[in-house]
């Protein structure tokens, strides 16, 4: 009887230890270029582990980022990676980017390491992420490897083209119309970008960026998918020389600033100054 119980327990243990964990990797096709942003946005990566009715015990996630030719450019250092514990109730275990790709425990190679350290991003390209649960002690596989392709290219905010930096505009012409031009968001987005153009007057005692951060804009207009705007200011430019600063804020389809973790977090392009007046001397 004792032997039979021992045999059953051994079979159970063996079954548990070698049970295939079914995993399902869900990854955005175009995730944020800034890798550190993946951890704070749960929608970027989800890994669902299912022990098929058997509770998933302790495990680690072996994760590798590969180029399209299969070269591994980044991988989790399993010796330092945290040991994860599955859902003890037997249900699925859900992991996110901070669990699967802990940047603090990852090793990158060559130019990828250099690019990541300098920019927080990998070079723009197509990549594949492969994950597999492994046993913490010897890294033996606990399930099938799951791979998903993704494309990385960071967004470039518009560059202001016209009026160009420190351009002096004729007041008579400017009172009727001022042309604004800017480059589009690169790469081209799947949904149209809303460009919010803002023009601020720089008062006598203000620096240009101070005016941008404190004044109510004389022009504040949202434009869908166009890169030129004809502004009829309906203002009188009586001073010898008035100073203005203008910028473009790029918004996504939900009217939220795109490229939020780069730069100022407002999706605002580098602003530039222009003048309206007759004086040729710049301040």
């Amino acid at each position: 009887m004792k032997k039979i119980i021992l045999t059953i327990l051994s079979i159970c243990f063996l079954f548990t230890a070698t049970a295939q964990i079914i995993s399902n990797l869900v990854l955005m096709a175009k995730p944020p270029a800034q890798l550190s942003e993946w951890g704070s946005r749960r929608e970027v990566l989800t890994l669902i582990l299912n022990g098929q009715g058997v509770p998933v015990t302790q495990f680690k996630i072996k994760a590798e980022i590969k180029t399209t030719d299969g070269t591994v450019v980044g991988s989790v250092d399993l010796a330092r990676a945290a040991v994860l514990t599955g859902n003890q109730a037997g249900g699925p275990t859900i992991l996110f980017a901070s669990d699967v790709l802990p940047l603090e425990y990852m090793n990158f190679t060559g130019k990828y390491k250099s690019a990541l350290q300098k920019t927080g991003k990998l070079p723009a390209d197509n990549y594949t992420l492969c994950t597999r649960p492994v046993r913490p002690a010897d890294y033996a596989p606990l399930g099938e490897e799951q791979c998903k392709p993704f494309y990385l290219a960071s967004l470039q905010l518009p560059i202001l083209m016209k009026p160009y930096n420190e351009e002096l505009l004729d007041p008579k012409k400017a009172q009727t119309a001022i042309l604004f031009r800017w480059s589009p968001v690169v790469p081209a987005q799947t949904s149209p970008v809303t460009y919010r153009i803002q023009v601020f007057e720089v008062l006598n005692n203000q620096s240009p960026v101070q005016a941008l951060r404190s004044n109510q804009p004389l022009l504040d207009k949202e434009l869908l998918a166009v890169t030129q705007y004809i502004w009829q200011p309906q203002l009188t430019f009586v001073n010898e020389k008035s100073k203005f600063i203008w910028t473009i804020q790029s918004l996504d389809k939900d009217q939220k600033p795109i490229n939020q973790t780069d730069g100022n977090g407002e999706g605002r392009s580098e602003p530039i100054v222009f003048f309206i007046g007759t004086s040729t001397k710049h301040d």
Partner: protein
Amino acid sequence: MSGTAGITYEGYGLSRSPSGWTGYTARRPWNQVRFNFTPTFRFGKDFSLPFNFNFAAVPTNFAGPYAGIKNQNFGQFITNPVNSFGLNPKYKWAELQLGTQYLKYSDLSTGDIGIFGAGVDLRPKTWRFKFFTGISQEGVNYFAGPPTVTGAYKRKNWMVQVGNELEGKYLFAVNLAKGKDVPASASPPPTTIKPQEGVVISVLGNVYVDKIYFKGEAAQSTFTKDVTTPTTTLLRGLKPFIEPHTSSLTDFAGQLSLGRKSTNFDIGLMLKYIGAGFQTTGYPYLQPDRFDYTLNTRFNAWKNKAGGYKMNVVASAGRRVNNLKNTALKANQFIANLNWYTQFDDHWSLNINYNNFGFQSASGTNPYGIKNVSNDLGVNPTFTWTGTKIMHLVSLSYNYSKYDERDVMTGLTTSNNTHTALLTYVPTYLTKDLSPDFSVLYFYNDVPLAKVKLFTVSSALNTNVAKKKIRLRGQLQYTLGKLNAFSNNNNLIASCNIDYKITKKLSWNTFLTTNYYKYGNEITPVGANYLESMCRTGFQYSFDTKR
């Protein structure tokens, strides 16, 4: 004591018709009062005490950390960029900097933000030592709105410069600037940005030899985009000034300019490299990941009888390349400007200007790349002649602007052409205190599916009355606009300046303007119109107790 003090009131009104139509929104605060108090007290020849107090009663922030804020606490009021409270007592070479200071240490370290705090600027002999610490923004809680308050983390700043300078000869300096957010300072926190921390160290060198100048700066930054991410040992960064996190970047920037300046000829070369991961809290809108090079020149030519020059040319040409680290799609820009002015004789002058800005980049998975090219050419002849009582000036200005944009799906380029013609007549009365001007302008913009025509007539009049104590200026402008085949838009603007010098030290300046705009039938409701008016009036007192 010298300087000024004043108070200015701005009132704004907007009336829209028909009732309930919201197609045009207010673009100024309804009521605003601005104060300025900027006297400088001098005690003997060595001690001075300048004040710089500029503040407004109503917050009007639309961009930056205070965007949307309506009710400020005391700390937010003090640090709001709309307000400045600065005091800079100075004794010989030692300056104490108190309150709000906009300090520019260099082009790559810090210079664009105002900080409320305390510091020193010490300049014994040729040595330079500067230090400042304070708060550039207070914590602002996120509020969904309306109106939405973006929210911000409280940011503490430190900056130091050590150097040696002989004015007009050389400057060598080392700068360090640091900014650090306080994560718990906003509740609820901002949704679009994380608490950050950044340090930049730069080395600056300027040398001037006769007419030749050489300026250079090299900088390294370590910037953490989210201080709540785990720390890492993989990145060294600028330890011990900052502890690297997994969201930290460390990168370089540099700029170099050299050239020659003289009375009749300038030439200069400017190179600027900003690494993709270079970021500093001192320049929050700096665009990283680019390499710019620009060649500038200015010269005078063609001598006239008086020994001066008839011709002045200012030109520049340059290129900007983005994406040096290949983390994005490569973009190329070509920028060229030319302004060529010639005074042929006492009557004729001609100004020609040209501007080109080209932008080219791949567009990701689309079949065609992005290509936008803007070209502008302006020609402006002016003729002047003098009669017995009037000096006449007639100026004609024509500008052609072409903007080509390629569709990334079809590869087809659409051209956007704009023609602007302006005729101005300015008679200046030699025997009367009267300066009128008259102008007529035609503007035409043509892009597929949209043609915009604008026709403007305007006139202004300047004069002094009441024994030149009151200066008056009035202007009337009428614009007739037309979009495609829709009915005409009508716009009438009237404005008036009254500057009254009450005493030698006290003046009262008033500006009144009203703007009426009536749309054609291109928008609904048909007949929509608005009337906006603005009144700005204020007193300025000039301190001047010099004997």
